[in-house]
């Protein structure tokens, strides 16, 4: 398993333009498969436009203690992009103005941003209903200074959402790194101990399931049942909901698909599973993604592809809800990942 980011290795797939080229060439260029744009057109769903903004997803840095094989952020210990307090203040101002109900903090490992705790504390004061922290779990056990995170989350009623690709050690470690499974179980137990994920507890702990390979996720409810049974019986670990998320063909997952000669089959699977009903609820219609340096994107994936919002307002400091709501959402073939089967978003399935 690689321990460095694509960027650090100077891999061509660290280049967003190159990724977009790959996604537009080959089977899409020779019209073996329809582009996402033409697929939307046949469904009378083009162009894709936003509904009222509900969720602000803020990527507060690409630094992470893990180097997951499928990471669309290309995060890792060698990534130095970190949001400053100044940009965080601009985000808080926007939350106050817009009345978004959910603040979704992601990374990298968001907890590694030195201003993380300050930011969460400030966010609780500006009136969002739900503050999500996408925690990779192992950060809690990685260093003594993070051991009290469960207590910190509890104090601020943070909604914890964590990744877990399987309830078995080998599959989890192959995707997320050696030792990740056992560290994750330990962290889940620490969260359970302070009340997270216990049935009827108000301290929400949800898990995210990403397939650990070149296949689409199965039925979310069936997977949740299997995860709950296995984690509870084998480890006495509890959580609330399982969100199943499709891996989008960008960054490290795209690199994996190409290297393992699965790219074409995977794109066929995504296109064949296209579900028009999912298009109506894709997350880019009610979410805005903010990068560590304050730029605005339709989603976290577009952020990694450097596709800034198609609007005269492109930075959090210039935020204007009405202007942004008139924009057209930027799309490419990776978008098929969010419309396959039951659909996929950072909140799981969407149909």
């Amino acid at each position: 398993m690689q321990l460095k980011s694509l960027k650090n290795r100077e891999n061509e797939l660290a280049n967003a333009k190159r990724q977009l080229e790959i996604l537009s060439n080959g089977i899409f260029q020779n019209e073996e498969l329809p582009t996402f744009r033409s697929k939307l057109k046949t469904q009378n769903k083009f162009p894709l436009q936003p509904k009222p903004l509900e969720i602000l997803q803020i990527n507060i840095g690409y630094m992470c203690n893990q180097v997951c094989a499928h990471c669309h952020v290309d995060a890792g210990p060698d990534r130095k992009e970190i949001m400053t307090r100044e940009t965080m203040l601009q985000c808080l101002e926007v939350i106050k103005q817009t009345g978004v109900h959910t603040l979704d903090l992601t990374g990298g490992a968001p907890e590694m941003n030195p201003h993380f705790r300050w930011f969460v504390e400030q966010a609780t004061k500006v009136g969002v209903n739900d503050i999500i922290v996408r925690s990779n779990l192992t950060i809690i056990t990685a260093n003594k200074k993070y051991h009290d995170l469960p207590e910190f989350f509890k104090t601020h009623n943070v909604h914890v959402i964590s990744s877990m690709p399987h309830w078995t050690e080998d599959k989890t470690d192959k995707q997320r790194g050696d030792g990740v499974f056992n560290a994750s179980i330990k962290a889940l137990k620490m969260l359970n101990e302070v009340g997270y994920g216990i049935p009827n507890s108000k301290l929400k702990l949800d898990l995210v399931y990403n397939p650990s390979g070149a296949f689409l996720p199965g039925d979310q409810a069936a997977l949740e049942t299997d995860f709950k049974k296995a984690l509870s019986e084998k480890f006495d670990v509890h959580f609330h909901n399982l969100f199943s998320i499709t891996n989008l063909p960008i960054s490290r997952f795209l690199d994996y698909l190409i290297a393992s000669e699965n790219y074409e089959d995977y794109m066929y699977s995504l296109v064949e599973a296209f579900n028009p009903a999912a298009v109506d609820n894709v997350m880019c219609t009610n979410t805005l993604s903010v990068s560590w340096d304050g730029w605005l994107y339709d989603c976290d994936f577009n952020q990694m592809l450097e596709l800034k919002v198609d609007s005269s307002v492109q930075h959090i400091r210039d935020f204007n809800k009405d202007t942004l709501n008139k924009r057209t959402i930027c799309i490419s073939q990776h978008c098929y990942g969010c419309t396959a089967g039951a659909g996929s978003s950072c909140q799981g399935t969407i149909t």
Partner: protein
Amino acid sequence: MSNTYYEPSDLRKFGNITEWNEELGKKFFDYYNSIFEEGALSAREKSLIALAVSHVVKCPYCIDAYTQDGLKRGITKEEMMEAVHAGAAIESGATLVHSVQMMNKYKKLSM
């Protein structure tokens, strides 16, 4: 035409069989899809049965399809291999049980 009898990408074209006989093709796929819904057996159990049978009938398309289906359902490799052994046991048992006939014939023809 390909130079091999089996072309992995042909699996994607399975649905095209309805083009040459729409009525029967449609009946088959309706039946097929109904079989794999939740029933007295779970869809997960039926996926494992399908995987075992795929090996017994030695259909490479089916093996590709039901390995992928199993992965989607979170079925582990240990479960998959046990299912294949269950199929293999029946197949080898079917061979070996015929050896009773061999033994019978041997005895009948021997002094």
